[in-house]
């Protein structure tokens, strides 16, 4: 058995473009290159038709009407448009927003930008399992609250928020509900009508589509959600997002959505879950002092985030360099601060330094998984053999009893 190295287990960072998706895109670069806004010749018609088919494909994945899809450059733009766009449009109603400490930077920084404009933002904390407390959300909503933004699934720990319950609370209080669903699409069923979502950010490259294209779902039915656009121009996308449509990218996102739905409908995602469960079970069987970060029950089927106590994350990544993963360790970031998401869960900073995120995907094979498991076990043992902390713990020393000199 030979496994092709390196093995990609970082599918929460990005995913490879599915060859079927890439193939569908190519004709729209060379052959059908028209501007979808050109109404007077066949080049334009072909482009427009492709864009509308993709819109239907994406809408079908989330139970929306095609008219509710706005193409953007990616989820960062979608989050900016949703949050700033809604805040600005509903400014007269109020200037208060609610979000969560574990959100993606694109959400948090959009909120910070609004704060500088005079808006007020409440950042909800999370429980140790990474989920918000619904009563805390209820208590945080005020008469001047215009938007609640809570992500569907967290990018680091894969924890799923109670979206349907949040949707019901927001609907009852007449507050617009935005969710960043980038990580959830194609991994868990997402139906905007059932969930009571008003605005939803999506990205192609997390679901085997190309980078540089995303979309925002904007509810048109009751209640209709209005936004102030971020970009001025030719009035594309019903005026919400001006700019010539990137037809080949849009075609790619449409096909990516089509195959993401197929993963859910055919049970392919259950196979991914089986491999993820096998990895976790195998690690627990062979290693001690492992800590799962975030809820197990409310979690994406392809995510595992574990702290390997007494083994620093970056050293671990160097040791398993044939496997591409991510770490919440400070040493992997420019800021030298460990993951703010793990800190929000109340994970000890010591353990945050030892966290590794595994993101399985559509193309992960059993052979790759077995290879990865064996390598991880071997390297964790090797690094623990080298770890003074592991040695001290095994000698019965309580690490908390030692006066460490912070540096």
């Amino acid at each position, binding site marked *: 058995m030979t496994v092709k190295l390196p093995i990609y287990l970082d599918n929460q960072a990005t995913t490879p473009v599915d060859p079927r998706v890439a193939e569908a895109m190519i004709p729209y670069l060379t052959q059908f290159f028209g501007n979808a806004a050109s109404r007077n010749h066949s080049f334009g018609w072909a482009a427009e038709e492709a864009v509308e088919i993709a819109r239907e494909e994406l809408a079908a994945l989330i139970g929306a009407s095609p008219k509710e899809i706005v193409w953007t450059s990616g989820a960062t733009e979608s989050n900016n448009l949703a949050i700033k766009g809604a805040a600005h449009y509903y400014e007269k109603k109020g200037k208060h927003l609610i979000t969560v400490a574990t959100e993606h930077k694109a959400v948090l920084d959009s909120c910070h930008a609004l704060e500088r404009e005079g808006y007020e933002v409440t950042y909800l904390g999370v429980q140790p399992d990474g989920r918000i407390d619904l009563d805390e959300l209820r208590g945080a909503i005020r008469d001047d609250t215009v938007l609640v933004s809570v992500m569907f699934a967290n990018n680091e720990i894969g924890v799923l928020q109670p979206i349907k319950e949040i949707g019901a609370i927001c609907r009852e209080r007449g507050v617009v509900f935005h969710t960043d669903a980038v990580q959830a699409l194609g991994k868990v069923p997402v139906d905007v009508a059932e969930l009571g979502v008003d605005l939803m950010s999506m990205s192609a490259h997390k679901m085997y589509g190309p980078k540089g294209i995303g979309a925002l779902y904007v509810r048109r039915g009751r209640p209709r959600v209005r936004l102030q656009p971020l970009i001025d121009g030719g009035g594309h996308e019903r005026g919400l997002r001006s700019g010539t449509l990137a037809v080949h990218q849009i075609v790619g996102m449409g096909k990516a959505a089509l195959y993401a739905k197929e993963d859910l409908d055919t049970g392919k995602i259950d196979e991914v879950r089986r491999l993820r469960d096998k990895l976790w079970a195998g690690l627990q069987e062979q290693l001690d002092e492992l800590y799962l970060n975030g809820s197990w029950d409310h979690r994406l089927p392809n995510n595992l985030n574990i702290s390997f106590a007494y083994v620093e*994350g970056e050293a671990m990544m*160097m040791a398993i360099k044939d496997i591409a993963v991510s770490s919440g360790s400070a040493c992997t970031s420019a800021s030298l601060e460990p993951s703010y998401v793990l800190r929000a869960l109340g994970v000890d900073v*010591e353990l945050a330094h030892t966290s590794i995120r595994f993101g399985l995907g559509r193309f992960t094979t059993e052979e790759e998984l077995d290879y990865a498991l064996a390598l991880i076990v071997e390297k964790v043992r090797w690094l623990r053999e*080298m770890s003074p902390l592991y*040695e001290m713990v095994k000698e019965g020393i309580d690490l908390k009893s030692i006066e460490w*000199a912070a*540096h």
Partner: protein
Amino acid sequence: MAYSDKLIDHYENPQNVGSMDKAAPDVGTGLVGAPACGDVMKLQLKINDDGIIEDAKFKTFGCGSAIASSSLVTTMVKGQSIEAAEQIKNSDIAAELALPPVKIHCSVLAEDAIKAAIADYRKKRAQQG
């Protein structure tokens, strides 16, 4: 981040990993850093009556640069006098491994570990009279 070949070699094939009896009178132990900061180094030096470092062992919790810095330090101090070992500067370690700027603190920690191990040895000697 691109690491030097020398750093990667010291990380993948670390020299002198292990522990010595910390109660032995001729062993000085330095434990520096903090788990909360993401790196802890334990450096042990076995020093003879002539003040020569006969052996060095380390264990390190930390990133690849911290492990490589510790490994390098053990090879630098072996066979040296205490006085010569004390002269080793973090900049020597950083230069040898071509540490990137964000990893300079690893070399500082390694220098601290040498000083701490020697201080522990001297304390033991003083207590013995």
